[in-house]
């Protein structure tokens, strides 16, 4: 696609943050995918005789309050965090593209209605919406994913709608229509490729946000629940040990921090290259 090919520009080699961002994200992805085999111990194995051990040869980062190996839990948590964010993103993109596309393409009263809906959803802070939907649907990761997706889709719908409307007036679309191409073909050939770039930028910049929300909600006990190894949950579990075993709290948070940074770095770099006019949140 046109947008992606711009990334293969010869200046890529000189673009520091883009390369670093991609490497870091790639690293995270690798850990997420191969986590199970990389983890030295079973992350869910409870062994109270081994609880709260300091770092040693067997447990490189020590153990938590239930005797579980910290390093293994951190590694496995990567898959959960990345996986849940990707799912959320997929859902958001689906909702955004479909609703925004329909609004832009059909126009008229439907467009107005959808825009009002967007406005409403955009006013609510993510957490408030998430609270509401978790009340509605119950706790659990899947419900948190739905809740976060429902609070983010409006931005994408707006963007898609704007792009679709802008593309609608282009000459080549008119020409194509005169030539008898169907609506669907016009959409696929002309509109979609031009949407990809800005969407990619927005998505990458958003991943960090979504990750923070997922772990935040899990921290509050509304998302993933113990004993699942998720960074937010691990921080919540470690609250009481902040004085004696701070690493139980610091390290999962560091993982969140690091992951969000990696995606933000990538997102910033992509934005600078593909669409510097995009306003960031």
């Amino acid at each position, binding site marked *: 696609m046109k947008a992606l090919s711009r990334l293969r520009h010869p200046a890529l080699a000189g673009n520091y943050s883009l390369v670093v961002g991609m490497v870091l994200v790639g690293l995270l992805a690798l850990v997420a995918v191969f986590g199970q085999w990389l983890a030295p111990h079973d992350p869910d194995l409870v062994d109270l005789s081994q609880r709260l051990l300091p770092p040693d040869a067997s447990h490189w980062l020590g153990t938590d309050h239930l005797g579980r190996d910290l390093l293994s839990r951190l590694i496995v948590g990567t898959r959960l965090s990345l996986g849940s964010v990707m799912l959320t993103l997929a859902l958001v993109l689906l909702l955004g593209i479909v609703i925004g596309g329909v609004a832009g393409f059909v126009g008229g009263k439907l467009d107005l209605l959808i825009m009002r809906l967007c406005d409403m959803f955009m006013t609510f802070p993510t957490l408030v919406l998430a609270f509401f939907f978790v009340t509605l649907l119950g706790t659990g990761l899947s419900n948190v994913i739905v809740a976060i997706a429902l609070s983010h889709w409006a931005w994408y719908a707006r963007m898609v709608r704007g792009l679709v409307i802008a593309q609608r007036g282009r000459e080549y679309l008119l020409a194509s229509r005169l030539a008898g191409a169907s609506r669907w073909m016009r959409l696929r050939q002309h509109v979609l490729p031009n949407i990809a770039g800005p969407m990619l930028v927005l998505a990458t910049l958003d991943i960090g946000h979504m990750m923070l929300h997922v772990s935040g909600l899990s921290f509050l*006990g509304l998302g993933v629940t113990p004993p699942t190894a998720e960074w937010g949950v691990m921080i919540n579990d470690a609250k009481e040990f902040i004085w004696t075993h701070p690493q139980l709290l610091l390290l999962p948070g560091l993982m969140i921090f690091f992951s969000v940074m990696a995606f933000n770095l990538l997102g910033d770099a992509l934005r600078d290259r593909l669409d510097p006019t995009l306003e960031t949140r």
Partner: protein
Amino acid sequence: MLRYICLRLLLLVPVMLGVSLLVFFLLHLGSTDPALDYLRLSHIPPTDAAIAEVRQTLGLDQPLYAQYLTWLGKAVQLDFGISYLTGRPVLDDLLYYLPATLQLGGLALVCTLVLSVPLGLLAARWQGRWPDHAVRAVTFLGVSMPNFWLAFLLIALFSLWLGWLPPLGRGSAGQLVMPVLAIALMSMSINARLLRASLLEASGQRHVTYARARGLGERQVWRDHILRNAWLPLVTATGMHVGELIGGALVIETIFAWPGVGRFAVSAVLNRDFPVMQCFTLLLTALLMLCNLLVDVCYAWLDPRSRLQGVSA
């Protein structure tokens, strides 16, 4: 201007109605039965007789639209029902806890605005040089940090290690510092970046060249022609910050044992206390809409173009 404000205030009514409708139907169409939740929270065994009795008491045997109208009638009189969990009137409880949250959120907003301005200015003024790089690095970190983790870091540093600040509770000024900082850091970073971008864009505009051509000094050019014009996008952004800051407060309160609406809401969510959730959502909606109105009014006041060319609702 006055007409614009009145118009917007009037518009609030249908929006609130719409939201209340949506909230009501979504909650009651959910998978669980409110009657069962009520019984569970009241520690009454859910026998068939008990369920039937509760349904009648709570009016759950009525058709849905009738339930809504009953609810609406009471809501207009500011009676939002009784909490399933505490048994007390919902609005009373929420209004009791709200000021603490607003205090945190309000201070965090002030913090955001006050701290982000010098940072953004510094970065834009010395673009490409080390102050710019420093500010960009700091804001980048600020945008990536989970606020609940930061809260614990602050507690570890200021309470446990240095012993300067008390970690829990509300009452003294010292207890405000850490929660406000934890909430504000992300919005502050976003705002600083936004200001920097806005300033850079403003400084490239033609009227700045013309101002320099007329002999105005650099400081005056920055003050009257660049900064003055760069405020506008920030005003719009403030509306968004308010939402994020309130969201942040909801999470942070639990860590600092801050007696605000967040802890109350979290327990309501976990216990599926429907009346509380309903009122909570509506209360926050109203609050946010008012904030947005305030923001839009400020924008119209600052930008003569929107004032004179006709404002869009």
